[in-house]
């Protein structure tokens, strides 16, 4: 039999656990419905392996669940957080197997997946156009640096080696490109 002090301690533990969780399963499910397609797309693009990408999706949402109390809305949306976690996990896997360059070279081989419903597709297309416009307005060397980093999964050092430019030049290109993209996307609204 549990004594009253034990019960009180148990209650405190449960309350503490609830406070730490900071998100119930329904909220996690809503977040999953809203952005698992993007999370999967990011992981799949870098890893080119559906099974591994789905592992990243699992890891991402479990991390969001476990670290829910660390989320600060002032620092960005949960969706953006999910995408960044997924990309970070995918990059870790990619670099662990030393295949960032291979991923870049295989980037054209999009895997065959069932098409999403029309409405989702149309809305996603609208948001995609906005980002594509922002990328298109960058000077070509800056756009190339961003694409090699984001879609190719290369580091600054690897980009410098690939394009044959000094590391300092690549760093400047990435910094300027990200500043311009941020300004352009902010102008267009979200």
């Amino acid at each position: 039999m549990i004594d009253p002090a034990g019960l009180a301690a148990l209650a405190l533990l449960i309350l503490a656990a609830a406070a730490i969780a900071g998100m119930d399963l329904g909220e996690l499910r809503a977040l999953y419905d809203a952005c698992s397609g993007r999370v999967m797309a990011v992981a799949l693009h870098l890893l080119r392996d559906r099974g591994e990408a789905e592992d990243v999706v699992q890891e991402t949402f479990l991390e969001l669940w476990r670290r829910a109390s660390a989320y600060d809305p002032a620092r960005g949306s949960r969706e953006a957080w999910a995408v960044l976690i997924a990309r970070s996990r995918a990059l870790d896997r990619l670099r662990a197997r030393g295949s960032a360059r291979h991923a870049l070279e295989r980037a054209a081989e999009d895997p065959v997946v069932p098409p999403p419903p029309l409405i989702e597709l149309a809305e996603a297309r609208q948001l995609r156009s906005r980002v594509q416009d922002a990328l298109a307005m960058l000077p070509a060397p800056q756009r190339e640096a961003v694409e090699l980093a984001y879609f190719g999964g290369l580091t600054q050092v690897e980009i410098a080696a690939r394009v044959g430019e000094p590391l300092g030049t690549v760093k400047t290109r990435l910094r300027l490109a990200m500043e311009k993209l941020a300004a352009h996307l902010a102008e267009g609204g979200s």
Partner: protein
Amino acid sequence: MTCAEVVELAGAFALGALEREERAAVEEHLAGPGPHQGCLDAVDRARATAAELSRVLPESRPDPGIWRAIEARTGATSRPQRARIGPWGWAAAAAAVAALAFLQLERLESRRQRAESRQARAELQALAGERDRLRAEVGALAAAGALQGDALALLDRPGTRLVSLEPQPGQRGRGVAIVNVAEGRAVVASSSLAPPPGKTFQLWVIRGAAPPRPAGFLQQTPGGAAGEVDPGLLRGPPPDALAVSLEPAGGSPSPTQVVLVGKVAG
């Protein structure tokens, strides 16, 4: 590492383009007590931008089993939620309805041969009614599928653009119009509109100060509602706007309750 150095590296950090040691140094700085001077804001801004870049990639749905695995690993259960029905689900439903209709027709046929009594004739009539209902259902599903196929094809045509349909004051929901002015075609779709019983969503083409022209109806499709704007109303210069209104079944000659409006021209 200083705040100024982190600001300098924020973009590359958010893109995951730093070498391991540099990345660890940035993370250590950000986790430090501060005071920070602009570095947290710079990193947040760069992270938000990097997250937006993912929109360039076509979305890809994970296997449905992935959510179940996540749910199991959280060690909790959620209230059952309504399952989403994807295009393949609708296709399967259409196939099932068609198979059912076929089986019912077969049954109808065999019953017809044995129908000698009044009771059998009554049953025959009931089955015929059921057959007609199933045929209508299959027809509606096929029409929705055809519309979806047309809209997807239109989406890929050169010159096609997307127009946001925004809710009017006091209204909810949103939509998107896939518009190709050169081809005089437009499809309106919304994932959040479902008409109440006895009502329908009607499409309108708006040009200048002229009264809105009725341009068709939205029909229920997988994942929402969609409808093609009457191509006859899209000839010539592009319309100023497209609108969706809630109307009694059968529609109205002028809009009763405008729900969504999207500006096309300009």
